[in-house]
């Protein structure tokens, strides 16, 4: 900063401490990165031409769509179910709280891969599903195998898994809202549902979003396990090609590139959603939102 001194004496110039170590360490790290990049670029075994060729292959693109579809369905249904489970867990009703606890305990304990096989083979436990009314008899039935396809088995397993994790994240968020906020809303006369929507949820979101972002990205990658039941997601599509051409690494790189892209989009989305829900709390993230509230003033 150049602040002019009021007196005739020339202001003494300040020289800040020079951090030579920072320059040196940055140089070393950049050099190492350079070596690595050149080895990746010049190593013919990566077969970059094959990677590029296959990146937008039709079967790969439909695999990407499948991965996106599985992620969206399981995250939406998983978080909806997780919200219900969180409410049950926090409920004053001991039966609901206990059932929710057991559900979360079970579906967090069983590995995703095991669940996937179990749901895929559920027909051996229940060969037929039927709806039976007392005194009337069976009104509807279906063979389980007709219902359980690789896709539906994958969706069920992913949703069960996701909802158990989402429940804990949402519960933590709800519990992070101070009791004073509930009392203030109550005292003003908000109904319970309004208290939840207008006071609890917007504030709980601040605690929910960072771990929920982790979960969504984790779920995106977890969908890769569906390749074991021959569901054509992006990984399985790549596997089909390399089983034919033996270009294993380039096709795994194709899948990697798509996972990187999808995760990047999610991370950017997370940033903006977090900025919205941190309004009133974090000074630097709320600038664009405050701009909106300034407008109210000029119109009133």
């Amino acid at each position, binding site marked *: 900063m150049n602040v002019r001194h009021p007196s005739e004496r020339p202001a003494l110039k300040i020289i800040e401490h020079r951090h030579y170590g920072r320059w040196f360490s940055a140089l070393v790290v950049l050099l190492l990165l350079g070596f690595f990049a050149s080895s990746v670029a010049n190593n013919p075994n990566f077969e970059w031409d094959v990677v590029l060729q296959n990146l937008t292959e039709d079967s790969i693109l439909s695999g990407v769509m499948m991965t996106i579809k599985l992620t969206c369905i399981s995250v939406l249904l998983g978080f909806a179910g997780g919200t219900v489970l969180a409410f049950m867990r926090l409920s004053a009703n001991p039966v609901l709280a206990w059932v929710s606890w057991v559900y979360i305990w079970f579906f967090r304990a069983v590995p995703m891969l095991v669940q996937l096989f179990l749901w895929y083979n559920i027909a051996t436990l229940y060969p037929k599903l039927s709806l039976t009314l007392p005194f009337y008899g069976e009104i509807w039935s279906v063979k389980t195998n007709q219902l359980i396809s690789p896709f539906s088995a994958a969706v069920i397993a992913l949703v069960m898994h996701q909802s158990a994790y989402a429940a804990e994240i949402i519960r933590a968020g709800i519990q992070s809202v101070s009791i004073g906020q509930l009392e203030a*809303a109550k*005292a003003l006369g908000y109904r319970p549902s309004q208290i939840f929507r207008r006071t609890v949820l917007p504030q709980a979101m601040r605690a929910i979003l960072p771990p929920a972002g982790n979960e969504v990205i984790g779920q995106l990658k977890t969908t890769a396990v569906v390749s074991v039941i021959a569901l054509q997601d992006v990984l399985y599509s790549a596997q089909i090609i390399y089983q034919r051409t033996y270009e294993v690494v380039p096709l795994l790189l194709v899948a990697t590139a798509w996972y990187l892209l999808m995760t990047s989009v999610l991370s950017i989305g997370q940033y903006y959603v977090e900025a919205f829900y941190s309004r*009133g709390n974090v000074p630097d993230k709320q600038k664009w939102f*405050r701009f909106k509230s300034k407008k109210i003033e000029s119109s009133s």
Partner: protein
Amino acid sequence: MSESIKLRGICKQFSGKTILHNIDLDMEAGSVTVILGPSGSGKSTLLRCINHLEKVDSGTVHIGQELIGYRQKGNYLVELPEAKSARQRQKIGMVFQQFNLFPHRTVLQNVMDAPQRIRNESTSVVRSRATALLTQVGLAHRINAWPRELSGGQQQRVAIARALSMQPEVMLFDEPTSALDPELVGDVLQVMKNLAQSGMTMVVVTHEIGFAREVADNIVFMDQGNIVESGNSHSLLDNPQHPRLREFLSSVL
């Protein structure tokens, strides 16, 4: 506008410990009642029983003619569902020690939200009332600030405006100045004094003896869940009868 408050036989226990012993208390419409007492004497709990934020073990609360939190059925008091209690609480404003403004809403939104969402009043009506209330409490220039950007005293004045936005019939204050820096207390007390002069029924739990002397019509002194002494504010402060009250006053003055 203002209503009276009538408490009869209020008893309350927390995990076996008695907090309130059979409290009877009448507060006239438009009067200001200050509740004094050492911490743990049950004064905040009593205040929270008035709007059914705290459930009583027995006893009744009436605001005007209306029984709060319950409906009488023969010899039984049946607790109202939360939605019905919420409707009753609209008429009972409350101000908390820790302000409890909604941090994710601006000052103006804090004051506007309840009448808009709960009573579906039109935005223009609510906005003009909210602006008027914020002007009354001296914060017209901060309507677009976030709560965290305000001082404690300013936040508490917004909280008072927010409570008044629902046009309550009585106002409850739970140690409204206890969390404030000493220099900020005056502004909040001034707002409360103006409110008292406008004829609002007010019940104030506080340690501000000066405010009690100047503004209160009646003072209630509580100790260990009982009303030890109550009466006209000047006679009670100038001529305390009970030794416990004398002891209390000499320690706070």
